[in-house]
């Protein structure tokens, strides 16, 4: 059973679908990859990438983007993991409704999310007004950036984790219980590893969504260098300010940073798969 799941995929144009599928896949890959490649190549060729890397505004934005998305991801895991497990394992009335509500930020336009956060946590907001009376102000702070990112990206992780937990064979967990595992041991040694790749995929999607977050950030957190101006905001500000080269360079840096993380995750993932193979 384990070795079947680990059979390597067919190489190149052999395998089901043959050559036409291969060519179709290459074409689709080019369609998706070309616009992004154009950004990076253009900024490399006209030298704006080199200038942008040393530009304080861009560096501040890059640090802010990477820092806030890391914190949002942690927040997502802390809040999302228990919630996903709960949704996967417990039956209760209104579960479908709750799942739909949690999935909603995925579908909502980011500007709607931003407006919603503003009306809830803004200074005159539903929760924001009492918070403001206590001296806690959220809009225009880096905390607001993290909140905006977490709000729009957590549903991606929760969804993937929920599906991952729900797809685990209960018999394996029961077998572990029979062998004397406590619930905590069970979760750590059986459930989590089995849901591992679903969780990892959810984390990557969630992080990617956070990194690209723009609409909710600019509406709720505002746009100030060093405090709330993330890299996507720089791309837009430079473009509308008439600095096209600066915009392209900032976009290229965003692309390269995102690509770097995605590649690193892939490498780690394949590393994991190789470990499993050595066991069978």
């Amino acid at each position: 059973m384990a070795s079947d799941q680990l059979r390597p995929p067919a190489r190149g144009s052999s395998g089901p679908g043959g050559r036409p599928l291969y060519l179709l896949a290459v074409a689709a890959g080019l369609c998706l990859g070309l616009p992004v490649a154009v950004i990076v190549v253009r900024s490399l060729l006209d030298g704006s990438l080199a200038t942008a890397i040393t530009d304080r505004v861009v560096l501040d934005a890059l640090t802010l983007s990477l820092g806030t998305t890391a914190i949002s991801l942690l927040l997502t895991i802390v809040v999302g993991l228990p919630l996903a497990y709960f949704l996967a394992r417990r039956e209760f009335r209104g579960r479908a409704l709750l799942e739909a509500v949690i999935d909603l930020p995925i579908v909502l336009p980011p500007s709607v999310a931003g407006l919603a956060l503003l009306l809830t946590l803004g200074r005159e907001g539903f929760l924001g007004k009492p918070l403001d009376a206590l001296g806690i102000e959220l809009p225009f702070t880096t905390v607001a950036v993290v909140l905006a990112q977490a709000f729009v990206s957590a549903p991606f992780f929760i969804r993937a984790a929920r599906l991952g937990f729900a797809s685990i064979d209960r018999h394996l967990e029961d077998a572990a219980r029979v062998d004397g595992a406590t619930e905590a041991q069970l979760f750590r040694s059986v459930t989590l590893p089995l849901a591992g790749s679903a969780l990892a995929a959810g984390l990557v999607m969630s992080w990617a969504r956070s990194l690209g977050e723009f609409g909710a950030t600019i509406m709720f957190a505002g746009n100030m260098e060093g405090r709330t101006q993330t890299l996507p905001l720089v791309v837009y500000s430079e473009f509308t300010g008439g600095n096209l080269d600066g915009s392209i360079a900032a976009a290229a840096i965003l692309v390269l940073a995102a690509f770097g993380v995605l590649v690193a995750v892939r490498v780690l993932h394949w590393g994991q798969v190789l470990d499993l193979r050595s066991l069978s």
Partner: protein
Amino acid sequence: MTITISTDSSSTLETQIEQGAPADVFLSADTTNPAKLVTKGLNVGDPVKFAGNLLTVIVPTANPAAIASPADLARTGVKVIAAGATVPITKYATMLVANLAKEAGYPAGFVAAYDANVVSQEDNVAAVVSKIELGEGDAAIVYVTDAKTSTKVTTITVPTHANVPATYAGVVVNASRNAAAAQAFLSWFAGPDGQAILASFGFLPPS
């Protein structure tokens, strides 16, 4: 003649036109952006000045920071909403702040204190007004005409001699497929009929 309108900050619109947006007429809140189009050869005919405007300070109706005069913009803890560096209102606002700094009764370091109080740089002046209407910011420098059309803000008057007159100019874009009609519209807009309509919204004649 059917007119379709696309609105945003003048600098954003200028960038869009440079990138090929299908515009017939470009109306700008300054003379700089039409001049940019002229430098790039994207115009038909010279820019025409069609309106003037003045600046004012707006605060939310509830005035949470108890702003009594423009001098309070520099008070510690006041949240000022501004626009991005290339939005026309920012250029005018910067000049206004510099003028106010020279007035009697304004603290030393007024300009630096004002800059330190800016908490966000919005894309256009309409977004600035929205943030004040929502009560998110304590104060903002906007056009008199913006304050006039909003019901959720209060104005704080700016000393007349320190105020900065804004000049609005428009130009026909060379991408226009009906340059004659575009020119006719612009002439009408800058003419007595257009001026009367603009005046009803609080605009001034061009300086």
